[in-house]
């Protein structure tokens, strides 16, 4: 336990130092990323105004709150993608990770966790600017702020497991980009990334209830944005934990079968 704590802490420090080396690039990346929710926000705000002030209970200012928190949640749930898996397996770089007496997934989790620290620091001025511009309606209770902290890390861990399982397919096919695009399409529809889930057709909401996607976007956003009782919030955090555990088991099983396929291509 002490060993793993030391490893995580050291990797996080390394990640922070590495990310600060490319802070300007990171900033431009973040500005590009913020374009997506700002477009959603402008479109839905316009629709809300034209429909007499709100759509499905969302006013322009509650939309502003949703998409502002969206930007933070999105920063938090960026994880090592299947493209990364594809690249490191195809290039043979993965060999060096496999030689270490620590499972490579630990490196992915720790390194990206370190990146979050830099991303949040860089996000703060952008978040302030967006708040001043769009004036979000955001009044969370104290327990929601605490719950949000856990919810964004839950989202991060669930997404890490999901995309790692997907990435491990590369052991079999060497190319997994096409499958990732399919995953991305599902995520867009069923996660609340495109639009709050309550605005989706009932059938989509019913299907989404059985999928992990909304626990990586919609739930953490709602924890901070929507009025929510402690009980509902804790139940949601529990479901996040469940999805993380399922993802972890799936990743372990997938790893067991897939690593045997590693042919150490390209070195």
């Amino acid at each position, binding site marked *: 336990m002490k060993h793993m704590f030391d490893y995580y802490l050291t990797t996080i420090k*390394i990640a922070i130092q590495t990310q600060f080396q490319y802070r300007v690039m990171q900033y431009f990346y973040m500005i590009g990323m913020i374009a997506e929710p700002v477009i959603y926000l402008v479109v839905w705000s316009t629709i809300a105004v034209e429909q007499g002030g709100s759509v499905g209970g969302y006013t322009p200012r509650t939309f502003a709150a949703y998409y502002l928190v969206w930007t933070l949640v999105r920063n938090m749930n960026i994880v090592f993608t299947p493209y990364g898996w594809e690249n490191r397996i195809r290039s043979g770089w993965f060999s060096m990770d*496999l*030689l270490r007496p620590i499972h490579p997934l630990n490196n992915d989790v720790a390194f990206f966790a370190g990146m979050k620290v830099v991303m949040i620091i860089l996000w703060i001025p952008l978040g302030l600017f967006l708040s001043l511009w769009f004036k979000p309606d955001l009044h969370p209770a104290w327990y929601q702020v605490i719950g949000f902290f856990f919810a964004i890390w839950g989202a991060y861990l669930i997404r890490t497991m999901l995309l790692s399982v997907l990435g491990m397919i590369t052991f079999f096919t060497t190319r997994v980009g096409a499958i990732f695009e399919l995953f991305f399409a599902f995520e867009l529809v069923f996660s609340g990334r495109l639009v709050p889930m309550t605005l989706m057709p009932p059938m989509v909401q019913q299907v989404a209830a059985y999928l992990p996607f909304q626990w990586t976007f919609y739930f953490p956003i709602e924890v901070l944005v929507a009025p929510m009782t402690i009980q509902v919030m804790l139940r949601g955090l529990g479901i996040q934990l469940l999805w993380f555990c399922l993802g972890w088991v799936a990743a372990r099983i997938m790893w067991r079968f897939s690593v045997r396929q590693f042919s150490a291509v390209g070195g």
Partner: protein
Amino acid sequence: MSEIIILNSLSKHFKVPVRESGLKASIGSLFKREYRTIKAVDEISFQIDQGEVVGFLGPNGAGKTTTLKMLSGLLYPTSGKGTVLGFVPSQRQSQFLSQITLVMGNRQQLVWDLPALDSFDLLRAIYSIPTQEFIRTRDEFIDLLELKELVNKPVRNLSLGERMKMEIAGSLLHRPKVLFLDEPTLGLDVTMQRRIRAFVSEYNQRYGATVLLTSHYMADVEALCKRVIVIHNGKLLFDGELNSLVEQFAAFKTIGVTLQIENADLRKYGQAISQDGTRYLLRVPKADTAQVTARLLADLPVDDLNVEDPPIEDVIEQVFAGGKPGEVTV
């Protein structure tokens, strides 16, 4: 001495798709895919004792790296068995991985954007090295490899040779008992090669580590390895002392003779390889060496004469070419 590495009929076969070039073949492969099995490593067996430094030789594609990857747990063997330090490498147990290292000349584990010291600290955490021991080992390696001026520079700003020295230092911080070195001096200049050789030798002597080394530079092998294992097309061709490889495969010797006269005709003594002024090099069958030497001394005004084995590169080349003992040419 105890056997640290044991290979028993170890094989690795790869099934690779094959098809002709062109659009027609490309469409055809959608319906009927053909595969070919490549025997990268084919039933090789050998043992290596604790503290041995063994040269693992073979031309490109011989199966050297595949064998090293199986021994370090990166690849699952198709058949046969291999153990390292009593562990089955493919099980990739932490206890096993903590006691070995694989250095590949074309791969790096240091963080590109940061000074190597940060990567060293990460390696300390990965291998759970006690802080005092880590500092002692790190500083010792920094001294031995003369890295003091370099460890604070970002890795990306180091030259290839400097980076390689840093990689090797990083790979040995946890003091592995078994070193798999795959072309550790690849692309380095002679000075850097020499320094890395000296370091490997020092590490071997100081810690009693077992080393299996592949290199295309015979100087590495000659400097470090008493024993060599030669592999070609996945099959083991030779396993024994470097000297006996030369004895077994070199059927000729080289006689270097310096005369007091120029333009001497030495064809009747053996095959003339080269001439530089009054210095001549002759190739003669090993069995005739003594007799030819005596005749040269008796017939000609000789200033200097020496008899040498052929260069090890030539012997190895002959082994790769499928030569049998007695067929080696120089």
